[in-house]
């Protein structure tokens, strides 16, 4: 036994704590790295120690993150959400952790109202409001149906859903179609133009995409598109330009070959080409597939879900199954459209933080210098953000290489224990919805989860770890 080579020669030293001895070591010519240590900002010390000493943890986290890295994502179909997600009766899906109408924020209420009008469950806004307030519509998180939705994430039976499969682990995940920017349902707008667009998507775009996707000889490899995007200035959350154009390139021949009315095909192509976030609703289920592959690994402290419903932020971990750990959603900081300002912004909303959970988005900020000003400034800030996220995560994803960091893999697999110890919270890039129902998008920026999510997750993981540690 060689103690990891300890006795083989003068050791390099990494030191955490009081620095009295580091000087003496340097005087002896020893290479010393001083850790910028600070007391953990989250969690009871005994809980933290119980997790650190849980003999299952290292292997469990390795298993969990390896499943994430191995997962694939191909586009297999486009189908009505009601059919594919089993939405029976008056059931609407929404983003984030579970939510009631009473607790719902402005944009969430706006989107739910719009969905009731769109489905014909109510003829007027007042009727829709009464229906929702009376509990006449069941609300359920997208995440409980293998689905994700950006912003309000409201998904109703007549909307069409992307259907993705993970050929490695066999999972499936779903997401509705992206409506574009500005006044859109997912941002809480429900006016005539919103409903008209949704109707066109239901009647024209959805059926065209369904036929086109089914006609493709090779299914679209969504993971491969995501990987290429990072080489092209996208981070896959707040910037999806390259990904959207690549998707357009892949879908166009199939759409044109459908022998559908040329006006409809032209409108579909124009719609896709004019929406630089079109890919987001493909990227999100791809990330969801990877994170779902890591569900239910006892002893793992890796985060599998980060999602917000406009009121609360929710987190799930691989070691605690379907349990939500929630705290109040924070209001993003960033830049505003037109005359809007910080007072117009709703607290954080959307399942799109699945991108950061997977290691792209804000975690791969370094890949997207074009939008680094959301970080509050400069390219070095973006690089620093990504560098910090490496200390929160379990692995680097070789499939998601970041060119400016020498093609280092994206920081992937958030470790709850690392969040507690570093005092750094995950960095999320996000859109901002107006806080008043019906407003639509007001800006875009950055946000972090509330500490409460990680405090609760830590306590639950520690409680679960204790019997194993004692055994």
């Amino acid at each position: 036994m060689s103690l990891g080579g300890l006795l083989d020669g003068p050791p390099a030293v990494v030191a955490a704590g009081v620095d009295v001895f580091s000087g003496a070591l340097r005087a002896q010519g020893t290479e010393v790295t001083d850790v910028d240590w600070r007391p953990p900002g989250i969690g009871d010390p005994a809980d933290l120690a119980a997790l650190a000493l849980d003999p299952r943890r290292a292997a469990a986290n390795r298993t969990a993150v390896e499943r994430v890295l191995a997962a694939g994502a191909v586009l297999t179909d486009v189908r009505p959400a009601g059919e594919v997600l089993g939405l029976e009766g008056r059931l609407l899906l929404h983003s984030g952790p579970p939510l009631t109408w009473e607790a719902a924020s402005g944009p969430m209420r706006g989107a739910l109202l719009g969905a009731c009008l769109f489905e014909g469950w109510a003829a007027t806004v007042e009727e829709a409001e009464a229906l929702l307030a009376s509990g006449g519509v069941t609300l359920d998180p997208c995440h409980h149906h293998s689905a994700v939705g950006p912003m309000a994430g409201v998904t109703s039976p007549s909307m069409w859903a992307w259907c993705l499969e993970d050929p490695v682990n066999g999972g499936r995940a779903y997401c509705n179609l992206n409506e574009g920017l500005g006044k859109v349902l997912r941002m809480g707008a429900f006016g005539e133009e919103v409903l008209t667009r949704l109707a066109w998507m239901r009647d024209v775009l959805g059926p065209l995409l369904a036929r086109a996707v089914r006609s493709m000889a090779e299914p679209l490899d969504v993971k491969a598109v995501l990987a290429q995007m990072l080489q092209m200035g996208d981070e896959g959350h707040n910037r999806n330009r390259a990904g959207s154009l690549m998707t357009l390139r892949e879908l166009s021949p199939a759409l044109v070959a459908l022998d559908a009315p040329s006006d409809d095909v032209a409108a579909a192509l124009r719609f896709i080409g004019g929406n630089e976030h079109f890919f987001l609703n493909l990227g999100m289920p791809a990330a969801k597939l990877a994170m779902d592959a890591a569900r239910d690994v006892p002893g793992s402290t890796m985060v599998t879900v980060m999602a917000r419903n406009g009121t609360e932020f929710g987190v799930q971990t691989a070691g605690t199954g379907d349990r939500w750990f929630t705290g109040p959603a924070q209001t993003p900081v960033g830049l505003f459209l037109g005359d809007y300002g910080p007072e117009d912004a709703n607290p954080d909303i959307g399942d799109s933080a699945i991108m950061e959970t997977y290691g792209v988005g804000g975690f791969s900020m370094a890949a997207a210098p074009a939008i680094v000003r959301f970080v509050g400034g400069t390219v070095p800030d973006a690089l620093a953000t990504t560098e910090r996220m490496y200390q929160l995560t379990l692995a680097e994803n070789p499939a998601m290489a970041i060119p400016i960091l020498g093609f280092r893999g994206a920081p992937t697999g958030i470790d709850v224990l690392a969040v507690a110890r570093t005092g750094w919270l995950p960095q999320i890039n996000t859109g901002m919805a107006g806080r008043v129902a019906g407003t639509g998008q007001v800006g875009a920026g950055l946000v972090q989860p509330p500490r409460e999510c990680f405090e609760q997750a830590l306590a639950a993981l520690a409680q679960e770890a204790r019997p194993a540690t004692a055994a």
Partner: protein
Amino acid sequence: MSAPGPGEGVSHVSLRSGVYADSVRLMQVSRDVGARDGVTAVLVAMATPLNVELAEGMGLAPEGAASPDQLLIAVRAVDDDALAAAVTAVDAALSERERSRATADAQPARTIGAGLDGLAPDGAALAIVSVPGQYAALEAADAIAAGRSVLVFSDGVPVEQEVALKRAAHEAGVLVMGPDCGTAIVSGVALGFANVVRPGPVGVVAASGTGAQQVSCLLDAAGVGVSHVIGVGGRDLSEAVGGLATLDALAALDADPGTERVLVVSKPPAPSVAEAVARAAGGLATPVRSAALSPETPDLTAAVEALLADLGREVPRWPSRPGPDGAAPPGAVLKGFYSGGTLADEAMLLAAPVLGDVRSNTPLRPELDLGTDLSAPGHVVVDFGDDALTVGRAHPMIDPTLRLEAIARLAASGEPAVLLLDVVLGYGADADPAASLAPALAAAREKAQLPVVVALVGTEADPQGWSRQADALAAAGAAVFASNAAATRHALDLLGDAR
């Protein structure tokens, strides 16, 4: 100042062709210009239908047809001056180039795990953890997970965490030195409180820091060097921990080609653990000698001398400086003021058969506990390095204040006494202990008839220099010995002469 409502004030709306900036940049310009005094509304954006609609909503619609490749500048301000200044500011902001480099300052590692990630994967490496005890296991576990050994200097680590760490380390084939390990030397690198000793064939496994310093310094004085000094923490040989680190350290030293002999230094171990260690030692190719302090084997110097005999080396005259002539006052008692716990134990074990009971804050038997009265009369040995006396202050090997005060108090008390002290040199210790101690001793000896005996643990190569310190202390009237056992016996002789 109340902002005018929409429609009030003056406005500027223009469309420019051939100018492009991305939307994020333009939102930033809008925000910066909007923050200027006198500006009430700003939209600087590419003239997409969405943005034109936004401008209309602000009452700042452009005239004529706008196209998405044009830049829309729409500003409202309280007066003409503010408006002109705002439009100028838009131009200035658009022409401003971001001054930045495409490199980030390295992000400091926040954990041992992140720090070890930054090291080259091959090559020896060691983590040192001295964070508050309740967090030490977190950092130590990182090192084990990374396949590296770790020295835990922190005290106050719960014993069950120590056991869990050491079991995990054993599984991973690495070593946890500590908790509460203050002394180690690995391949010549002194870690914590350690002395500059020559390299050589003796490996030391130590559950005692000052004990390890005493034996390595005496070996050095005898011309014999050490390969490694591996600290295992004061609790390692307890029943609860079961010698987990000692057993792994013995195996590692046995496999180390540079180690020909092993010396195990400790306070009295739990009998079952001592047996297990002896059994393991018997199965090694490398001869192992125990220097475990006990009433039967009270003397670290004797253990070193036996080891020298094993090596066929001559036992030297251990370095010393004779004290001034002059006897102890009649009825004198022993006052041992120590900074090293093991050295204090050794002094008590040697003194007890001669003097009878010696009271202490770290007593040999519970009924001899001094409690909080460190200036109690009679034979007393105080360990100023005990945890209870180091709360909120540095160890007495670094900060001598408490002990200097106790010396002054003793001289003023009028109680006849012989004063026995240790002074430990080396890395981590006071850079010049004699500088404060020698004047304090001289002052005390002016007040009272007080013979002083010092155990000076160190080497010539230490930063403080053994001889330099010894000469300064001798000049202040102390008798100085490199061996704590020899110092103690000298003090006992002085006391015997006085009876």
